[in-house]
């Protein structure tokens, strides 16, 4: 009985799921951007020196700062566009989780070194 109650919401949602979908998808994009930038900085000396925002921390400062900025900008844009909409969450969740899994894998040095 309890399981049934959990499966079927007793009330219709008060808020559209768009804001949540924007936050979830942008988190996946932000993580993946960080992983992709880390690989790019490792492979190209030009990108590496361009990403040294704070010398004592090296390219990590640029990789993380840029990834966070991209994450926040993407989040703001998606939230602005989706906040009043109902989004197909199956698709956005799947994309966000795939991006998050790829981020873990791409930051793992033995895999990152393949590129």
């Amino acid at each position, binding site marked *: 009985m309890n399981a049934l109650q959990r499966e079927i919401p007793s009330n219709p949602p008060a808020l559209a*799921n768009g804001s949540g979908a924007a936050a979830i998808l942008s*988190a996946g994009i932000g993580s993946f951007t*960080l992983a992709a930038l880390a690989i790019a900085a490792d492979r190209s000396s030009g990108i590496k020196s361009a990403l040294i925002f704070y010398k004592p921390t090296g390219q990590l400062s640029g990789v993380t700062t840029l990834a966070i900025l991209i994450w926040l900008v993407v989040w703001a844009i998606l939230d602005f566009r989706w906040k009043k909409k109902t989004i197909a969450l199956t698709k956005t969740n799947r994309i966000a989780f795939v991006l998050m899994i790829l981020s873990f894998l791409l930051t793992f040095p033995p895999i990152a070194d393949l590129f």
Partner: protein
Amino acid sequence: MEITARALWTMIHGMGFGALYLLACSGALVELYRFTSSSPASPSTAAQQRFLKVYLIAMAVLAWAAVLTGAYVIYPWYRAAVPPGTVDLSQFPQRLLMSNPTTVGWHSLGMEWKEHVAWFAPLSITMAASVFIRYGRDLSNHKQLRTAVLGFVAASFLAAGIAGFFGAMIDKYAPVQGGNTIQLMQGEKP
């Protein structure tokens, strides 16, 4: 009993922010699940919702404090360049690890992974906190949203766990040392 300034910062970063975050993760997962899937017959109270909001915000603050102190306070000491002619590498943890084939992996795999993967924790928990603040109890009516939030909190737990494990091991083999010595307590004479 004394400690160097760099060791103190490392302790604040790892045991203060990092370990506290890891401890909070399991609580957040359980509480988020319980809060957003409880039966309508026993709805959570406004006070419980407020508590969970504050809890998640505190977790986000801890996670950001951990990565920022790690990257901008401790990492520069860890990767400091060795002046020519230096024989004693104890003040240069990265070089110390890389100088020995039995410890080089702690840098080439451990630190290389940790320095990036750790950032997934604040990113994920900030997202989870913001979604909970926006939706609150209404999350129980958005099953897929709830699943995604729980998934990302679990991912942040994993990221923080990887970073914490390698941080502890790296500090075991090549501790960050130096700076002013702070006397914590006067010991008894042996």
